[in-house]
């Protein structure tokens, strides 16, 4: 009996449930303590804020399950937004596809370098982080030039349109999460993702196209980051250059909180969604308190993250 793996299995269940339990507790307490928390307006806002991060974290989930990491998504998120805003002058289609294509291509190059040259994902995607951020500054004249999106354009509708007051991005993120879950668990590509991260050498011998799988997940991660950027630009009606700094770390954090093993081979989309929920509820509650200096927000979320991780560690024993 391989005790290591048995422990890992137990951990998986506990981690997933641990994050879910934490989310439920968090929501319940916030609901009781802060009267405004449970209001429909607040919940809509919460879901909308979470949807952008969820789209990025979805790609990150796949990358981390293959045992990799993608540090470029924060920069690609910002680049995607600027490209969408710039492209919006040529119509809806250009505004949407340009960020997907460019960010997807950068993701593809990430994957290509990682899979074919055996360079560490950390290094390759760190380089892309710098590259994409630099490209962004170059095309916006160091951020001085902010591209606006015409308020009455169809593209803005993509970010600001609502159903029962819930923004379109929420539905887009939810649909992508369901699709992502299906791809991960019910397609050969998904099985290859698990196999690649679970035991790469074995995967090669089992006939899994490891290189293609890696290229696939990084391309996917880049594309999704670009999409999240486009949605954010549509919502903000402009390509904001300063967003996305450190977003890659938020994405990694929610994926790991959601029970995906940082070492690869195990993880779920649902866990990631729960992780996004948890981090957004925390930020929301800090806003509710109101008196807290906004600079302390990340201090509090950092401490809270640490508590969650420590709890998971304790649950593992």
């Amino acid at each position: 009996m391989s005790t290591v793996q048995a422990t890992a299995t137990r951990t998986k269940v506990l981690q997933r449930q641990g994050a879910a339990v934490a989310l439920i507790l968090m929501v319940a307490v916030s609901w009781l303590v802060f009267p405004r928390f449970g209001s429909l307006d607040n919940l809509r806002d919460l879901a909308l804020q979470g949807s952008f991060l969820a789209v990025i974290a979805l790609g990150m989930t796949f990358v981390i399950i293959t045992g990799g990491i993608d540090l470029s998504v924060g920069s690609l998120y910002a680049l995607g937004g600027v490209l969408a805003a710039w492209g919006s002058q040529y119509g809806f289609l250009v505004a949407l596809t340009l960020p997907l294509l460019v960010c997807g291509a950068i993701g593809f190059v990430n994957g290509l370098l990682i899979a074919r040259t055996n360079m560490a994902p950390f290094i390759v995607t760190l380089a892309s982080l710098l590259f994409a951020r630099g490209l962004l500054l170059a095309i916006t004249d160091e951020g001085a030039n902010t591209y606006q999106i015409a308020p009455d354009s169809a593209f803005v509708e993509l970010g600001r349109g609502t159903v029962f007051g819930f923004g379109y991005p929420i539905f887009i993120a939810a649909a992508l999460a369901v699709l992502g879950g299906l791809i991960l668990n019910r397609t050969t590509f998904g099985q290859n993702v698990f196999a690649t991260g679970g035991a790469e050498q074995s995967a090669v011998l089992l006939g899994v196209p490891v290189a293609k799988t890696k290229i696939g997940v990084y391309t996917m991660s880049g594309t999704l980051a670009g999409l999240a950027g486009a949605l954010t630009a549509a919502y903000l009606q402009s390509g904001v250059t300063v967003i996305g700094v450190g977003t890659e770390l938020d994405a990694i954090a929610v994926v790991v909180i959601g029970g995906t093993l940082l070492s690869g081979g195990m993880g779920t989309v649902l866990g990631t969604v729960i992780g996004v929920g948890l981090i957004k509820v925390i930020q929301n509650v800090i806003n509710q308190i109101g008196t807290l200096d906004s600079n302390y927000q990340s201090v509090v979320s950092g401490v809270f993250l640490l508590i969650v991780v420590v709890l998971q560690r304790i649950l593992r024993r």
Partner: protein
Amino acid sequence: MPTEPVIEVAGVTKTFAGVKALDDVDFTLNRGEIHALVGENGAGKSTLIKVLTGIHSPDGGRIARNGRISTIYQEVNLVPLMSVAANLFLGREPRNRLGLIDRTRRDAEAKELLQGYGITADVSSPLGTLAVGEQQMVALARAVEADADVVIMDEPTSSLEPREVETLLDVVRKLHEQGIAIIYVSHRMDELYRICDTVTVLRDGVSVHSGPLKELPRIELVSLMLGRSVNEIQKHGTTAFGEDHHADTLPVLEALDLTSKPRINNIDVSIRPGEVVGLAGLLGSGRTETAKAIIGALPLDHGTVLVAGKPVPHNVKAATRAGISMLAEDRKTEGIIPNLSVRENIVLAALPKLSRFGITSRSKQDRIVDAFIKRLRIKVSSPEQKVAELSGGNQQKVLLARWLCTEPKILLLDEPTRGIDVGAKAEVQALIDELAKEGLAVLLISSELDELLDGADRLIVLRDGEVAGELEGAQLTREHVLNAIAAEVMDDADGNQNSH
């Protein structure tokens, strides 16, 4: 059945870094035959397999494949975190109308299929939760179900229990009946002679013999593998252990009442200087756990370890300082650091002794490493060679050297000869002997009864985590050991009768 080759290899040569791993090798596998591929480690078996399966392309020669080849390896090459069923069907999952993987059907098919291999475990649980033997069986099932015409098995039984070996051999026979050709690589003579039709012997990259196996006496086969004459081997026997060691001094190691529930219970072990004590018992009887308990790597409910009469705190650091060293069973995960050089691997444990204020003396290191390479006859191109490039036997010697560097008084050896070839095995056995003669106290764990009977002066037989018997002198026979191991079965039978 007409002889129709499914694999035909002619004059294949493969060179790695100037060393000929395969030199003009011919090899023919006929449809429906079980072909033994034997040779010492480093003889070129693995290279030949990799050339056959297309992982390596040969530098010269011709290969004709007439069918699909599946390979199962010595180490289970599956994904431990994925479910049993997912592993079994990876890459050819049954699908529903939407083109999505039909998990219900996959699990049902996996369950049914694995029953044919004697596995009744939950197919939706991660593969890693199964016993190694069961995992190996899943790997075999996978290889076979891939509609292979040829199945290559590289040491498939090296980590299996006797019962599992029987199941595996049954499966091999079934495949044989279905007309599937099998290349069977093993060091276990019994298995080879029981199931194989033909044999090819490789030595130093050259095919030295190919023909029917039954007509080849065992001793001749061994002599072909080793390249030594039959006489020479007969004189020295099949294991390389010498005389028993006579020790009448006080025990240097006394482990009393070691208990770590549920794995071991009230185990006592004492070893005198110069004595080799064997731990016998089935897999899971608590052998490895006992060794780990002695070195402090297993949390204890209670129990004491004394070295030269003094109690040792229960942690690895203290045990090591007191002079206990352990050679772990799993070289890959618990010992060797493959990307470091031979020198670095050897001095690792002794670094604290070799350094002053955190700075190590390189010349001192080199002296020690050279001495051990000579003394243990480790085959390396230079001390700076990466350990990963060495054969299993030489890796084992590197590990042995690492622990000997620390000048231990007590050496715990867990399966020191597992997975290494006949020649290296004999050398490791001879080394154990030498070390004991020099006064080291040795605890030897082995699944091979012959190794224990020849190598140990005294045997402690474990059963279900308890001492089932201690054998010495004239009691050191196969029958006595098996009786001690098997007593449980009889107890059970009695118990059942009583309860009815």
